């Protein structure tokens, strides 16, 4: 039963992708309906799969020499992410019904989204290290295709290619890691590898290389330091895609990877610390960039990067549960924020926040949803972001040095500042221009309401969440905790009130300096740095330049002169003789 469900969850959206690709341009309505039905059915399947969480290992047949088995595991780590991918995927598709209405090439759009949803489910459900890499690369392919969906726009193409190269480059870390797993254990089974690593059967050098390889892959995929530059440029994608891929699901794949493998690398010196500091540095850099950005989607992108930093920090501090619980909250509230932003952008026709203002009166439902999302992002009590962020802060307080905790509190202030700034600039303040606002569509609103409701109540699932984790992940040694106990720990903890104070401090700081938005709060130098991505853009460009120069140089070698070609042959002969001479 579980096996059939898993097979359906991966293959059904892919089947849908093929069907939709074959639609004609004129069948626009049918295309929308098909996409909605396929994604809705997958979402239902994923919810059914929730009931099957356990320690089941499903292994079908061997894929071939060096490729392991077609194997999946039905544990909480995978299934919860599958649900997120399928349910938010479904909402994003429903939202697209209005958002993408009348666009060209809808078939390609929906096919790629469905291909992505299936691949994301496969990525988190499989227990074969090669298949992780396999699905990992498919998600990268879909992400790149969807970012550059508007191929006529050079910025979109550039953003898509950048995302592809950076995530693929990091992906080499995963390639290296999974190949080391294969060479050291003779199998690609992840559970087998974790058990072997914990038993100390793997050489420590190989384990360390694999561990840091996976960190590189995860950092690239989850847009962390030093690879964080691709996510803001990925905002050229249609907004539902940003909500689904670049906020709720694909960017979490890196976090997932680290959570999955964390128990194996506990013995590697510096592994946890590296993950922790990658997270912290990312949070600080991206929060500052979010404060100075003026493009609505870019602000949200930076905030995604910084929230993913929280997830990394939690793993580094040793709490997989905290990381995963915040991942769930973040997926919901960030998808909500992005879809609201999509509704706003669709209505007013610009992404520049400086041109917005006072939209609250004109689009109340969207504004309220956005404010709910922003409150959750800032960590204001009772919304899901508050509870899960407290969980992370608690984990860091107990599992990391005090200095890190203080930095995290500082990050909480920054988060509050950019959240309130964003809400204020878009929905309140003075009207900046005569923007013609039209009402968001019916389907848009449905998706928003579902996500807003999720943001308010999703933390109530904590008991079942932690129970599922402790029951289905033997290697992670997670203790189950009931919702009541969790709530009482947080409410009784004085540090909670310190964190809430920091949020209020952030808001107050911003309100007092509102006239010159945020400028007085942080020094001018910081603004210059932040606007220039702290110099990482320049590094990217330098690398591209170098490669292109090298390529031009290699073209000069290809002179086409026959004598030169024969000279090449003779050089080859001499070199071969030398190597053989030394070797023999």
């Amino acid at each position, binding site marked *: 039963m579980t096996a059939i469900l898993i097979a359906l969850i991966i293959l059904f959206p892919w089947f849908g992708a093929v069907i939709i*690709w074959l639609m004609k341009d004129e069948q626009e309505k049918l295309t929308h309906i098909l996409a909605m039905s396929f994604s809705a059915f997958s979402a239902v399947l994923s919810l059914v799969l929730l009931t099957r969480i356990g320690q089941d290992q499903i292994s079908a*047949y061997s894929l071939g020499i060096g*490729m392991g088995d077609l194997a999946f595991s039905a544990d909480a780590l995978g299934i919860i992410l599958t649900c997120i991918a399928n349910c938010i995927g479904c909402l994003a598709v429903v939202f697209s019904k209005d958002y993408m209405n009348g666009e060209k090439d809808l078939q390609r759009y929906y096919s790629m989204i469905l291909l992505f949803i299936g691949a994301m489910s496969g990525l988190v459900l499989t227990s074969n290290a090669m298949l992780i890499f396999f699905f990992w*690369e498919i998600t990268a392919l879909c992400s790149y295709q969807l970012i550059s969906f508007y191929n006529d726009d050079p910025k979109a193409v550039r953003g898509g290619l950048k995302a592809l*190269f950076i995530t693929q480059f990091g992906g080499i870390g995963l390639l290296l890691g999974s*190949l080391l797993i294969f060479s*050291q254990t003779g199998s690609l089974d992840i559970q087998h590898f974790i058990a072997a690593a914990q038993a100390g059967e793997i050489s420590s050098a190989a384990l360390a290389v694999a561990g840091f390889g996976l960190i590189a892959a995860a950092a690239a995929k989850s847009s962390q330091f030093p690879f964080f530059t691709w996510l803001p440029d990925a905002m050229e994608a249609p907004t539902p895609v940003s909500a689904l891929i670049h906020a709720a699901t694909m960017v979490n794949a890196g976090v997932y990877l680290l959570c999955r493998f964390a128990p194996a690398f506990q013995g590697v010196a510096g592994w946890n610390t590296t993950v922790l500091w990658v997270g912290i540095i990312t949070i600080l850099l991206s929060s500052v960039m979010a404060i100075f950005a003026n493009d609505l989607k870019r602000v949200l992108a930076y905030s995604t990067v910084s929230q993913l930093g929280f997830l990394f920090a939690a793993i580094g501090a040793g709490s997989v549960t905290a990381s995963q619980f915040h991942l769930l909250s973040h997926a919901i509230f960030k998808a909500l924020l992005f879809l609201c932003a999509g509704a706003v952008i669709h209505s007013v026709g610009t992404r520049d926040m400086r041109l917005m203002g006072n939209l609250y009166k004109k689009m109340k439902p969207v504004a309220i949803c956005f404010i709910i999302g922003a409150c959750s992002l800032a960590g204001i009590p009772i919304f899901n972001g508050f509870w899960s962020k407290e969980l992370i802060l608690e984990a860091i307080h107990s599992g990391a040095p005090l200095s890190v905790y203080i930095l995290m509190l500082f990050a909480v202030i920054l988060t509050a500042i950019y959240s309130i700034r964003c809400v204020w600039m878009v929905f309140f303040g003075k009207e900046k221009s005569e923007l013609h606002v039209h009402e968001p569509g019916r389907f848009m609103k449905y998706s928003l309401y579902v996500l807003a409701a999720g943001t308010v109540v999703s933390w109530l699932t904590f008991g079942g969440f932690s129970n599922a984790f402790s029951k289905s992940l033997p290697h992670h040694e997670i203790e189950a905790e009931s919702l009541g106990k969790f709530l009482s720990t947080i409410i009784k903890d004085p540090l909670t009130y310190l964190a809430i104070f920091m949020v209020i401090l952030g808001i107050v700081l911003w309100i007092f300096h509102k006239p010159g938005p945020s400028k007085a709060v942080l020094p001018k130098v910081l603004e210059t740095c932040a606007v220039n991505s702290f110099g990482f853009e320049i590094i990217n460009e330098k690398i591209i330049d170098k490669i292109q120069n090298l390529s031009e140089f290699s073209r000069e070698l290809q002179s086409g002169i*026959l004598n030169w070609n024969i000279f090449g042959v003779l050089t080859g002969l001499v070199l071969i003789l030398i190597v053989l001479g030394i070797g023999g």
Partner: protein
Amino acid sequence: MQNNLILWLLFTPMISSVVVYVVGRFLAPNDTEKPNKTVWLCVAGIAATFVPFILSSINILNGKSVTTTIGDITLVFDGISMLVSLTVLILGLAVILFSVDYMAAEHSEEKFYGLLMILITSIIGLSTSTDLFNIYIWFELMAVSTYSLVAFYRNRATSLEAGIKYLTQSAAGSIFIILGIAMIFGTTGKISMQDIPALIASSKRIMIAAGACFITGYGIKCAFVPMHFWLPDAHSQAPSGVSAMLSGIVIETGLIALLRSLSALNPAAASFGIIFLLIGALNMLIGNLGALRQSEVKRMFAFSSISHMGYIALGIGFFLTFQESTASADGVFFHIFNHAMMKGLAFLAAGAIVFNLKQAKGDHSPLMVKDLDGISQKYPWYALLLSIAVLALGGLPPLAGFISKWQIFAGGALSKNPWAMFLIVFAGINSVLSLGYYAPLVNRMYRHQPSQTVLAGISKCSATMLASLILLGIFVVLLGLFPMLISNYTGSASSALLNMFR
């Protein structure tokens, strides 16, 4: 028939080549717009060749051997021959179907089909040879047929130039091969690969020299860096169908010939493997750098063939250098098959596009990257299939190229050698680099605003062209999702290689 399966396998395409040519001469249509009907005889020839091929394969897969002896010559159909024949027959069928309309307007098409059948015969023949001399004969037959195919547009200067360059360098390569054979024959008095290893223990230096001659000579055909300079010209100037054959199977056949020849020398030098590793790394890098800034589509694919030979050479290097890396050999043969399908598809799709955009209107300028802008609006199938081909070549799943690269790497990783891991990472970086020229092609094809060239192209797509593309496309997608479909074939080829070297 059972005893002479190999002869049937060789004679069927050989006889068809003559029949196709002669019948084609008589049928030569007055109306040059219509295809010469002899092409269907050619298709029938390929179909007929499948019969002895399938019968021989059944024997091999059941663990029996298929051998024929004529006088002193012994021909053996083993796992490697099986894989090579399978590849060349499928690719050949696709190329012929593709050429029905593509070559219709050309003069003397019947020569084209005749030569193509000789090429197919020579490749199958080469893969079954067991002695140095026979390999050389088949190899030269293959070379002669390709010279004429590369320079098929004999009225065009660029095409002739490419043909002459190809001829000169291949001839230089042949001299090295003959020299190598002479050294071995002079020392041992034998040419059969099975007899030689026992006789060369005392003459190691000569054998090393012979090995170097083989690697250089055959290496020219395999486009090993720095002997690769001829390839971008030859592969981009030939008719698209021929480019597909050249990149898809001819350079790989050169590698098979090289491996067979080196197997005779195996005890003499253990460092053959290191050469393959070095060449592999160089080929990947030079091929990718060459392709990165190309503005001509077929030339880009030609450079990409150089880099794919790099992956194949890397796998062979792993196999020869490290005892544990037998899985690399599986990967190599898998990649040879996949590369034939992917690169065949890429060249044929580019050919179909250039045919519709330019050739059918009498414009013989090459297909430029910028001509592809917005092609999906007018030719959705061509755009999709070319996208599949280039993404597969770039190693993206769920397409075939990903799986075979992985298998090569997995074999290398089993050695647990740090240098092997380093080379794998280097190969991975090269794969990412290669996306630097493949991915933008896809972006161009899916623009909404078609280029002027696309708007001016003829709308009608040829059914046979599309059929040939779909045939190859199916393999590229299916093998990416179900790699075990071909594991029997790659497994037999890999164990045949193991027999040759261990």
